[in-house]
């Protein structure tokens, strides 16, 4: 019974995610694309919950569904003028892009379905957040600090870039 429920939930979340991702890419209205992008992020968060990664799902909703989506909407509002309905046109490489994407996707899908994956039967760690905290502050403490540094540098750089350098 719960297996059936899992399957149904997986397909529903997959259609939500892939459908809204297709909306992001295909729509001509940039603002609608941004809204579909937020929907995609929420769908991916649902997939994380199905993969028993609740902490990452929460981070996904907070960082992507909240911060990144709002930043993108802000970016659209500050850089668009004129007709919003035609704000996200395609370039003239649509056919070539479809060809490259199609062949990449075909190769990926073929590789995925023919590889004999080593599925482990061990049980998943019960709650992920304490385990993540443990490994982040023990094994991965240097990358953790570097990521903090990177975020600081990126934010300062973003502010300076957006504000504009002062002419002396």
């Amino acid at each position, binding site marked *: 019974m719960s297996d059936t429920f899992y399957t149904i939930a997986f397909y529903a979340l997959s259609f939500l995610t892939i459908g809204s991702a297709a909306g992001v890419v295909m729509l001509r209205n940039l603002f609608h694309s941004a809204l579909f992008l937020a929907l995609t992020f929420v769908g991916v968060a649902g997939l994380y919950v199905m993969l028993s990664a609740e902490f990452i799902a929460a981070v996904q909703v907070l960082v992507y569904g909240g911060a990144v989506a709002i930043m993108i909407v802000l970016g659209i509002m500050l850089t668009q003028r004129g007709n919003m309905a035609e704000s996200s046109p395609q370039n003239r490489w649509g056919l070539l*892009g479809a060809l490259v994407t199609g062949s990449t996707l075909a190769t990926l899908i073929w590789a995925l379905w023919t590889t004999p994956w080593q599925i482990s039967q061990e049980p998943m760690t019960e709650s992920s957040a304490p385990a993540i905290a443990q*490994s982040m502050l023990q094994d991965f403490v240097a990358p953790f600090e570097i990521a903090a540094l990177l975020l600081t540098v*990126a934010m300062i750089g973003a502010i300076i870039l957006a504000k504009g350098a002062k002419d002396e």
Partner: protein
Amino acid sequence: MTIGLVHFLTIGAFLFGLGLYGLLTKRNAVAVLMSIELMLNAVNVNLIAFNKFTAPADIIGQVFAVFIIAVAAAEVAVGLALVFSIYRDRSTVQVDDLDWLKW
């Protein structure tokens, strides 16, 4: 059919493909950034799926996903700042108008 690793990886592959298509065909710089976000999300789905199905005792895949989320947040902030800066100078965000380095 029970849902296994391959199903999640397939979803990741489709997300990546859609992001790649958007990256190649969009003219608006903000739309290109949105496509990159889709591709980064696809990578995270793959990492967490591998974590659950091939090494469930370790949590390393999820830790790696957290780092990718942090880097992606930095990327979108700097990318949008660049878009603002270009827009202030040139009043355009269409990537194929940004060809001043071409001779």
